[in-house]
């Protein structure tokens, strides 16, 4: 039904393809600049309405980060409390070590009710575990009901953004997908469908309504799981979430163990941070909270699947642990200069952008070439850290993971180019005489290479976009041409700059 990320190329090759797609770059630049503007206006508003000398937004971030951090550092206790509270309120709690176990639990619930379809609330975790494909393999159709997820599903496409998985599609493309595909899976799109966003949204409303009204089983994730009360929280915009959480008889929620928030009161900073960071709104249109089963209101059979799938691996990583604070707002994607140009598909995962560049290696472990390429998909500019509502120091984790990737190759028979370069540098830099030779050689190379430089970097310096020999470094970056004279030679020649004209 949807595509798959399995077998994606490493980031630099995927990025090169994406960069050549001008429509994609246009769609992304338009969307991310819109959302950046909305978010920054709200951050200023929070600063003003809180007042005081320190930034109110920054103090809110500190509070949000501390809530998630305190939950993670006491996770075992909170998980046990969550389970107890949920069970006391009539929910059935399941534990799943990995994707296969979680999928099998959801499949068995659907089968127990002879369901041949389920309606789904947009959820990152069910994408992560490939739930739709697992259900389909067992003859159960999973209908995505979030507008962007519907666009991705109908277009046999892959999600490219955490919040807006169809961010790479513009209105004309969406209209074409609706006209072509809706008729195959339910109520067709009206023949006179235009590309007005309101008209497209109206078509999705008509198309999905019959599915909401007849579905017996719904599947959701959760934005937060409150340990002391057993309350699950889903934050959404369209009302598709409310439909799924309210109308069916059976509800299964797949919840990553890092979604825990210790107490009900601690939801406060997170509910203020998430919508402003995510869609750039003071509050999202709908937030639903429910605690187990409410007699006479909503699903009377409630299941919660607590999922590990690599989260304990990430938790064991001292530096990387902070990534589990992530509340999936996608602010880091919207401010990232790399994401803005390559889009989400190049990251080869449902978690793209800066957070994906650290979350994927943390959840899966390093060692696979595609995963290992992700920590390098960044210029380390730090915009992601500045935007993160729970203060995840993404650049710090990126550098830490690069070290892990390099460490993972120490024993290789053919060392990585980077390791060879570093060893050469160590050899040259540890001896003044050797350094002198190396610098003279580089000056010659610079004079030669300067002639081939085709482009200028900011400041007018010549750059090389491809160095002869096909270095892995320059296939993804433009390299400044080496200076024609080394600093030490220049110092000697000009007597430390005193005779610069010489």
């Amino acid at each position, binding site marked *: 039904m949807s595509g798959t990320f399995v077998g994606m190329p490493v980031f630099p090759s995927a990025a090169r393809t994406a960069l050549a797609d001008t429509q994609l770059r246009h769609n992304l630049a338009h969307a991310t600049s819109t959302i950046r503007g909305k978010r920054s206006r709200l951050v200023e508003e929070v600063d003003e309405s809180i007042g005081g000398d320190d930034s109110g937004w920054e103090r809110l971030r500190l509070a949000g980060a501390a809530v998630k951090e305190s939950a993670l550092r006491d*996770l075992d206790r909170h*998980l046990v409390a969550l389970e107890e509270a949920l069970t006391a309120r009539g929910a059935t709690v399941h*534990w799943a070590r990995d994707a296969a176990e979680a999928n099998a639990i959801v499949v068995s619930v659907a089968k127990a009710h002879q369901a041949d379809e389920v309606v789904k609330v947009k959820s990152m975790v069910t994408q992560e575990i490939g739930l739709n494909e697992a259900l389909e393999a067992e003859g159960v159709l999973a209908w995505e009901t979030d*507008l962007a997820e519907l666009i991705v599903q109908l277009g046999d496409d892959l999600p490219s953004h955490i919040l807006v998985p169809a961010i790479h599609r513009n209105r004309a493309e969406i209209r074409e997908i609706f006209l072509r595909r809706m008729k195959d899976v339910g109520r067709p799109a009206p023949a006179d469908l235009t590309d007005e966003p309101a008209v497209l949204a109206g078509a999705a409303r008509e198309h999905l309504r019959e599915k909401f009204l007849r579905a017996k089983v719904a599947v959701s994730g959760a934005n937060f799981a409150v340990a002391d009360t057993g309350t699950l929280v889903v934050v959404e915009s369209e009302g*598709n979430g*409310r439909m799924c959480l309210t109308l069916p008889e059976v509800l299964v929620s797949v919840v990553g*163990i890092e979604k825990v928030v210790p107490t*009900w009161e601690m939801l406060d900073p997170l509910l203020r941070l998430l919508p402003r960071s995510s869609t750039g709104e*003071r509050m999202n249109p709908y937030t639903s909270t429910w605690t187990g089963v409410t007699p006479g*209101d909503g699903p009377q059979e409630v299941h919660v699947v607590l999922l590990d799938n690599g989260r304990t691996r990430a938790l064991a990583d001292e530096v990387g642990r902070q990534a589990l604070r992530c509340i999936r707002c996608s602010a880091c994607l919207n401010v990232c200069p790399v994401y803005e140009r390559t889009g989400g598909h190049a990251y080869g995962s449902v978690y793209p952008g800066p957070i994906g560049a650290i979350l994927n290696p943390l959840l899966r472990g390093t060692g696979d070439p595609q995963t290992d390429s992700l920590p390098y998909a960044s210029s380390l500019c730090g915009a992601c850290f500045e935007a993160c509502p729970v203060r995840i120091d993404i650049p710090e984790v990126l550098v830490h993971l690069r070290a892990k990737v390099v460490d993972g190759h120490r024993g290789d028979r053919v060392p990585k180019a980077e390791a060879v370069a570093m060893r050469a540098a160590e050899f040259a830099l540890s001896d003044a005489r050797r350094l002198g030779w190396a610098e003279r050689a580089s000056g010659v190379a610079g004079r030669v290479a300067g002639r081939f430089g085709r482009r200028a970097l900011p400041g007018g310096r010549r750059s090389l976009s491809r160095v002869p020999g096909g270095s892995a470094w320059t296939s993804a970056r433009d390299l400044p041409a080496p200076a024609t004279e080394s600093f030490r030679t220049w110092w000697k020649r000009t007597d430390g700059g005193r005779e610069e004209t010489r």
Partner: protein
Amino acid sequence: MSAREEILGRVRSALEGVERLTDVPVAPRVTTAADRVVELFVERVEDYRAVVTRCAPADLAATVRAALPAGGTVVVPPGLGVEVPGAIEDTGLTAAELDRIDAVVTEARVGIAETGTIVLDHGPGQGRRALSLVPDQHVCIVRVDQVVTDVPDAVALLDPLRPLTWISGPSATSDIELDRVEGVHGPRHLHVVVVG
């Protein structure tokens, strides 16, 4: 070993030697003047392109009537504190039956000024969750004494053991080019009546 035991074991070993964090800073509060709270609530709800009408308690019934579509069918929850002539009272209508009704009138539990949010805890006068979801128009009555300043005030008032629906404007989406448009699956028309 069960999945539960194994996951809890992995968590414990990952956290070995990690200090618990006991000192969580209190989230900062906004400094909105008390006499501006209701006015701000109205402004912020209107920002979402919802319709807001203010009225005195004596005019509530007339104001609600005027907010409803002429000739449309209306459903109300048991315990609603205002008479809506011609309305059907919810006695467990099916989703399909609700889908044929044009509008619903409910009360609310709390209004949040800073974010322009209404929270329903689905107690008497508010009805079960499906009631304020399926019909295309939601007329929601909020008393001025129910309006609080910001999210932390609401969190402190609300009972998490009840199902809660936080509503900020009509159903909307930003999924097409990140441009907000109103009207997807939830009620496309939200009319908030602020009483008092």
